[in-house]
């Protein structure tokens, strides 16, 4: 669950070009929500997303993941919890590096980057190929090509994949994130994890001793040990709850209509498959209605329309346009009265 509380951002404060980009935004998303954001130029949509991801720092307000504030974490430390795709296809990938290198970089998001491991592992390669195949763009055959040679649509699809894949974290990291994002007393979370971990480990140790003392063949022992470890690992992974929140900043705006439709389709597939919480900015009202379970409209740094569930399903473009015009008219008349 992600919640934005009282977010405010002013650019160039105290100067003649002072602009209130985000006035006062409160927004709460449940896990698995797919929310589309529309609004005119300068409404504050992109700024909001950049604040969530940490590119900008908000002047006021909290960003809560499971009721835990992340607004003080720097951008790169927030990265494992937010997957991002930008409007510019050039921005989400490293053009001078190969497809494989880009995926490998993304795979270790939020993990220590060691001097003693190669950046591309052969055992990960198969997973990447499998994932690339699901995109249906033939990228699995171009692993060793520079990303700069790919088309905009291919780069966006690759960025989408990069934003959503992540290597399984270590037990230590699972514990850290479980405690960090526990909704309630941190000590309880620690105790809960440690207790479960200890139990699982004891069981694994017991099983290990059993296997060792048994008179099975070497291969059998190895297989049994592996099985026992997997069981132990599975029990710890129950605590791994962090899934990235997907932040899409008009990621199809720079693509031709056909490619844009394809990338949107891929997006929807990935979101559904992993049941990701998603915020998608779009200029296209049709897409805003078609995708997601909730729609918000922003104007002058405020959320002016918020349509949910069944109501959103029945929404038509005409209605949306009407709301859009009304929102901008309200703002116009307001500013006319205030005389600015």
């Amino acid at each position, binding site marked *: 669950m992600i919640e934005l509380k009282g977010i405010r951002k002013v650019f160039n404060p105290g100067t003649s070009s002072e602009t209130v980009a985000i006035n006062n935004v409160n927004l709460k998303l449940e896990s698995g929500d797919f929310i589309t954001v529309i609004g005119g130029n300068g409404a504050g949509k992109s700024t909001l997303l950049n604040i969530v991801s940490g590119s900008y720092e908000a002047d006021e307000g909290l960003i809560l993941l499971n009721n835990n504030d992340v607004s003080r974490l720097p951008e790169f430390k927030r990265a494992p919890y937010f997957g991002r795709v930008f409007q510019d296809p050039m921005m989400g990938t*490293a053009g001078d*590096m190969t497809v494989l290198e880009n995926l490998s*970089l993304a795979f270790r998001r939020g993990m220590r980057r060691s001097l003693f491991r*190669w*950046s591309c592992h052969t055992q990960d390669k198969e997973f990447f190929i499998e994932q690339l195949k699901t995109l249906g763009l033939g990228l699995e055959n171009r692993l060793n090509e520079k990303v700069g040679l790919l088309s905009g649509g291919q780069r966006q699809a690759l960025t989408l994949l990069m934003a959503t894949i992540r290597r399984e974290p270590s037990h230590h990291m699972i514990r850290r994130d479980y405690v960090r994002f526990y909704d309630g007393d941190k000590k309880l979370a620690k105790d809960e994890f440690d207790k479960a971990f200890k139990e699982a480990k004891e069981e694994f140790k017991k099983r290990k001793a059993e296997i060792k003392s048994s008179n099975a063949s070497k291969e059998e022992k190895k297989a049994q040990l592996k099985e026992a470890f997997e069981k132990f690992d599975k029990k710890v992974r129950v605590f791994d709850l962090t899934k990235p929140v997907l932040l899409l900043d008009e990621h199809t705006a720079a693509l031709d209509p056909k490619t844009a439709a394809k990338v949107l389709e891929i997006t929807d597939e990935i979101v559904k498959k992993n049941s990701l919480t998603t915020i998608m900015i779009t200029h296209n009202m049709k897409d805003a209605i078609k995708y997601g379970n909730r729609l918000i409209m922003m104007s002058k740094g405020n959320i002016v329309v918020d349509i949910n569930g069944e109501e959103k399903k029945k929404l038509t473009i005409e209605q949306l346009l009407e709301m859009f015009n009304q929102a901008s008219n309200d703002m116009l008349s307001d500013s006319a009265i205030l005389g600015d």
Partner: protein
Amino acid sequence: MLEYLASLPGALCLALIWSIMAIGVFITFKVLNVADLTVDGSFATGGIVCVVVMAHGGHFALALLLGFLAGLLCGLVTGLLYTCLGIPPILAGILTQLALWSINLKIAGGKANLAINARLTPVLVSQLNIYNSLWILAIILVAVAGLLYLFFGTELGASIRATGNNPHMSKAQGINTKFNIVLGLMISNGLVALSGALLAQYQGFADINMGRGAIVIGLCAVVIGTAIFSKVSPNFLVRLLSVGAGSLIYYIVYQTVVFIGLDTDLLKMLAAVIVALFLGIPYLQKTIVPRVKKWKKNKELLKEGSNV
């Protein structure tokens, strides 16, 4: 002519020494995408630290190591000025370079130049023994290039390459770009200082001004190397070694120009002109050439139009 040929092994030695520095410049200029001007200062720092250590009876290997470490520190200062204080990288480099001039003078004990007696002190490389030095320097160069190639293939190294290539993407993928920039600047200046230390041993003295214009020579090697070898292979090791080749070409040109009898006062200008040309030509190719083509085509179109 004989004199010219006899001078070539010496030039080759110098080329090998400077190519290590050029690889340092390559790391900042091409990998990190930052123009770092600390080089002029850290090169002299490496040389002076090396000579001071040896003057105090230190082993030549220790002297090289300490020279390298001093270079790391220089890079650290520039890196912190850039990442923590938000000073633009070019200016940060200039500030460090300026400060290093005083620091170098202090390390040298207030003297503008220091000599080592190469006949009495054991050294790794020396112009008194050019052919031996040639081998040793070639091995050092290949070792440096090889190590860097391996380094940039690790997770950490790859994240540094990504930082230089696309900082937005790097941050979004959880890479600590500030740390990587500082680390890259440190490695770069460490190599530059190592090169300075080797030059000091080779020529038997270190001078407070020995680094003046080093950045331009380094850039020369980088741009010549990439211009000639970029089409051969995009492989990183090839790119690193092509910088060495660029340095070699620069020194052969340099030696030839000296032999022809050009005023040596003009050599720095020559280096600057070479860099300007090699950086400028690709730009002109991109902008002027298509324009000329279009112009010619339009002329033909106009002609056809008038015929009708």
